[in-house]
């Protein structure tokens, strides 16, 4: 794919976003080591190019649906970093006031329509949002991120067929990081590409992209989102990538064959992108600025989140219902 068509501003934005995602995920890990993140968390370290590529390509009123591995996708839509880190730490300032935690980050105002922690469920939900856009003629697009392992669950199949039959403006993005939790995807999947090799089962085109190349992701996103906006229906994109850390905070990832991580670290999306920008003539000082800005943003968000108090216990019986309460009886 020729990536020449991307302008400088967009490129800088893609780099900026990848940096923020990278630094924020690293910070989340540090905070876990300090025992400040109490629940589980699933980092996107190594997979930032996908969230960034789409994040930059999306219209502000488009919708993101993602998984428990959703910090990057939520931040990529512009959600408050303090809100994200605060939620991980279970603080009042958290995006969800501490009620959802790392696996359920949501910022509706920014189009981040939720992180779903049970495999597969959000694929049909994204289709439903796309239906609503289609129904109202708004040309919004729903983008739904999920993992390679998710392509083996029933809801994947139902959502894909449904979206194609109804010609819905939804883009399904499989982030193939080669593993489900600790099990190599190849050992539990009948085809090489769990998502893309199934596209034809829904009359869709097979699309596999380098998920560690933000430019390629960005251009692919633009192409299929434009088509969807114009009534061309859904797309299924498989982005090849790798997570640098374990599945979740508790996982040392010992199941990986020797050298695999090292090989992928050489294709680290952030480093690669920096290299490309340098090659394209972006000044070292500009890059450094972006890096220190991103770090500062993460530092400030960390400080703000740490300063926030634990959520009030009142919240426990709030917001089950639209009236704000939890009453099941009179």
């Amino acid at each position, binding site marked *: 794919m020729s990536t020449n068509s991307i302008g400088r501003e967009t490129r800088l934005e893609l780099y900026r976003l990848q940096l923020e995602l990278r630094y924020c995920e690293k910070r989340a890990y540090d905070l876990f080591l300090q025992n400040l993140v109490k629940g589980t968390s699933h980092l996107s370290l190594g997979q930032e190019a996908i969230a960034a590529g789409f994040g930059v390509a999306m219209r502000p009123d488009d*919708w993101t*649906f993602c998984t428990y591995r959703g910090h990057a996708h939520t931040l990529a839509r512009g959600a408050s970093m303090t809100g994200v880190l605060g939620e991980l730490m279970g603080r009042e300032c958290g*995006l*969800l*006031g501490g*009620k*959802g935690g790392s696996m*359920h980050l*949501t*910022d*509706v105002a920014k189009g981040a*329509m*939720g992180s*779903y922690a*049970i495999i*597969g*469920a*959000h*694929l*049909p*939900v*994204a*289709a*439903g*949002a*796309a*239906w*609503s*856009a289609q*129904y*109202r003629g708004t040309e919004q697009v*729903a983008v739904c991120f999920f993992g390679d392992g998710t392509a083996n669950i*029933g*809801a994947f199949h*139902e*959502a894909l*067929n*449904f979206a194609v*039959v*109804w010609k819905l403006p939804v883009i399904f993005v499989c982030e193939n990081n080669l593993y489900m939790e600790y099990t190599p995807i190849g050992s539990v999947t009948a085809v090489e590409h769990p998502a893309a090799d199934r596209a034809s089962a829904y009359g869709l085109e097979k699309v596999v992209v380098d998920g560690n190349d933000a430019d390629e992701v960005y251009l692919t996103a633009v192409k299929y989102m434009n088509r969807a906006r114009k009534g061309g229906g859904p797309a299924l994109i498989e982005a090849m990538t790798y997570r640098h850390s374990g599945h979740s905070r508790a996982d040392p990832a010992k199941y990986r064959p020797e050298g695999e991580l090292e090989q992928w670290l050489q294709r680290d999306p952030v480093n690669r992108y920096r290299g490309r920008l340098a090659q394209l003539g972006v000044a070292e000082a500009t890059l450094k600025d972006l890096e220190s800005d991103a770090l500062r943003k993460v530092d400030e968000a960390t400080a703000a989140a740490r300063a926030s108090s634990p959520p009030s216990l009142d*919240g426990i019986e*709030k*917001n*089950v*219902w*639209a*009236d*704000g309460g*939890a*009453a*099941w*009886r*009179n």
Partner: protein
Amino acid sequence: MAELTYRDAVAAGIAQEMARDERVVFLGEDVAAAGGVFKATVGLLEKFGPRRVRDCPISEQAIIGAAMGAAMTGLRPIAEIMFSDFLAVCWDMVANEIAKTRYMTNGQIALPLVIRTANGAGSRFGAQHSQAVENWAMAVPGLKVVAPATPADVKGLIAAAVRDPDPVIVFEQKSLYSMKGEVPDGEHVDQLGRAKVRRQGKDCTVVALALMVHRALEAAEVLEKEHGISCTVVDVRSLVPLDTQTILSEVSKTGRLVTVEENPRLCGWGAEIASIVADECFWDLDGPIMRIATPHVPLPSADQLEDNTIPSVERIVREIRERID
């Protein structure tokens, strides 16, 4: 007042709300062109067109998921699950996603949607097409649950469910679809969370739901005439929210509680009500709380077997007569 069948009242309730609000859309399997396998949605496609009334593939997870996604982005979908037994194939969507999303997102996401489904026995369809599973839904925080017993109620409660800002499951009673009854003319909107006292008595308060309301009422007539036992019959109508005020006050008056449940015994809605009464009404009770429920077995299909499995009028009469003095 017009006389309508329960099935026509369903269609009337949906039509009333679709006519009122463009955001209301309807989807399910064989619901549009065919008008539903129970013919409860006949005419909707003709009235509202294929954009708003939609046939779906056999993909319950996609149907319920689509309703959820549409609801959170501004529509007010009504989704049909053909038989309530099939809620099991999309139970994750219902119990883990729809029920929990408002809470988990601390109120950011609203899910004004309705799931309608045909519930209960009486059609000799066997164990996978005859269950009364309203207690499955009641057990999950974040779902509102109603089970109307009459044509008027089914119309009015569907309308109320559509207007409610939270997810509501409407359990329609399969064996009541052909029942006729008066339905108020013009716009008819009921209220969630209100039980109805269908009959007033002195000796015992019978609390029932859906089909069992009619059986309880018939049994009450027999008990009164033949055995001099006078029963109050409360139609619960809404399991969540639950009208405990009405139930507690009626039990207090008679001093006895009997639940009549179509669900298999264990963890039925009657157990919940019994536990509430045994706590909050304990000192008003004059005797044990009795539950009359389907025995804890899957349902058999042959007519005589099915008829003798779910609570019959005769069984209600017999058990109350034997135990209430």
